[in-house]
């Protein structure tokens, strides 16, 4: 207490600053630097070349991948948030006793290995999967359906299922913190339950909604596991393409440039969504 509080604070924070903040920032900066380098087969040189960024911007293939990734991520995030909202509302308002029970039940799946959750969809939608052998067994089809797996839709379904529970907690926290008397006041002033929801509850819960959206959108945008496992050639997403540059394709500058571009683009879109929705909700009042 008698040494400066600032000094004590930074002393306590030093390990975490070095390990997390400096390390992460350092590595990301390295990526930025690497993106300006040049690569010829196995040799990588630092330099100042905009070749990779040219490729990123010019290449139609990259653009297609980015669009597909953005599209899938957007659909997954919106779906997750919309589906999760009533659930969060339920736990925040309709439950008074066993809240912890409901919360555990709802968030438990999000802690089970991501890899395994995607694997389960392979079991369901695969050539010899649950859906196919079930339909075959019932006599509804004679040959297994092939279109169920290895396409962007299956990727989106699996992603939505995997990420959905992540939307619940931020929205729940936001709803739970709300002052209930505000809703009552709106009712006193003449708003029916639906209107008071639109004018009071929804706007006040927006921070949670935005947090949920961003939390899901950005990681999903650059996802690797799901497209790699069940995306097939038509379901490739940018995360897979980036990983390839650091593996088989061996093009580090391109990979770095793509990684940076992905991060920037994903954050930008998330910001736009947040601002856009804020305007929309304000207009609805």
């Amino acid at each position, binding site marked *: 207490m008698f040494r400066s*509080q600032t000094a*004590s*604070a930074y002393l306590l924070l030093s390990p975490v*600053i070095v*390990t997390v903040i400096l390390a*992460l920032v350092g*590595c990301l900066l390295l990526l930025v630097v690497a993106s300006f380098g040049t690569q010829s087969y196995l040799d990588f040189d630092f330099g100042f070349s905009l070749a990779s960024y040219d490729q990123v911007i010019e290449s139609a293939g990259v653009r297609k991948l980015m669009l597909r990734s953005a599209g899938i991520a957007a659909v997954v995030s919106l779906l997750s948030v919309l589906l999760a909202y009533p*659930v969060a509302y339920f736990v925040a308002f309709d439950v008074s006793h066993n809240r912890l029970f409901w919360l555990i039940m709802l968030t438990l799946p999000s802690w089970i290995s991501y890899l395994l959750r995607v694997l389960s969809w392979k079991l369901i939608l695969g050539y010899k999967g649950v859906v196919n052998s079930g339909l075959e067994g019932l006599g509804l089809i004679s040959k297994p359906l092939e279109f169920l797996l290895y396409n962007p839709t299956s990727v989106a379904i699996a992603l939505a*299922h995997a990420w959905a529970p992540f939307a619940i907690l931020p929205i729940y926290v936001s709803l739970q913190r709300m002052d209930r008397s505000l809703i009552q006041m709106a009712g006193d002033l003449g708003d029916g339950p639906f209107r008071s929801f639109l004018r009071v509850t929804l706007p006040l819960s927006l921070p949670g909604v935005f947090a949920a959206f961003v939390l899901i959108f950005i*990681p999903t945008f650059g996802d690797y596991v799901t497209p790699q496992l069940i995306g097939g050639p038509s379901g490739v997403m940018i995360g897979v393409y980036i990983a390839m540059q650091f593996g088989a394709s061996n093009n580090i500058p391109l990979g770095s440039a793509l990684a940076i571009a992905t991060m920037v683009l994903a954050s930008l879109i998330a910001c736009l969504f947040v601002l856009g929705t804020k305007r929309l909700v304000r207009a609805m009042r």
Partner: protein
Amino acid sequence: MSRLRKAYVVLYLALLYLPISFIPLFAFHDSVYISFPWRGFTLDWFAGLFEAEGLLGALENSLIVAAIASVSSTVMATLAALATARLRFPGRQAISIALLAPIALPTVVIGVALLSAFSLSGVPLSLGTVAMAHCLFCTPFAYGVMLSQFRGLSGDLEQASMDLGEPPVRTFFRVTLPLAAPGILSSLMLTFTVSFDEFILAFFLSSNSPTLPVYMWSQMRFPDKLPLVLALATLVILFSIVAVVGSQLLRRQGRRRPATASQEG
């Protein structure tokens, strides 16, 4: 209206758990292939786990990495949360956000960033690099737990301890630590699970010493190995459930406070 919501939530839960439940379901299936209806019940696949080559090695690797990552991230996060929850200093908000932000980054980006750093600085890929990566990755989770833990406990208690004569270090051991213990345990369990299940960073950074998820991934490309993978997956799922539920219950217990002033004398 609320009954409608409840029905919706129950349906939601069912759809959430249904796909995952197929894994244990087919782990006991007496056939290399998935099919409906079931062919028969067997424990062969689970027995086969003991003979699977490389499995025990991968398991050992995962346990080592998870142990290192959980302990180090929890220790660092506890110190950090202590600072941000109790002290006033410039940059407090910024640092708090910066410590939680990595959760929102695509893991692939973190993975390639670390990969570049290691390869360009000549550090060979090994279990050690995975451990370092997991340490970084788990800290935001640990920080979240410890921050809410310290926020839930009044700072008055530490001040009272010091007022009664105990200097800061002794106050930490007599008051802060015992009261934070449930949170610390919860954080350890949570980060252990996160590290144990983590795939992408381990995949990029492990080279010859795979962790369990990486091992599973490599086996997934063989159709006849599928039941084995399912059996393994079932055990992992079971373990995760126990760890997470335990961690949440402990966290709840750690926030217990004495009753606020009531009306009796």
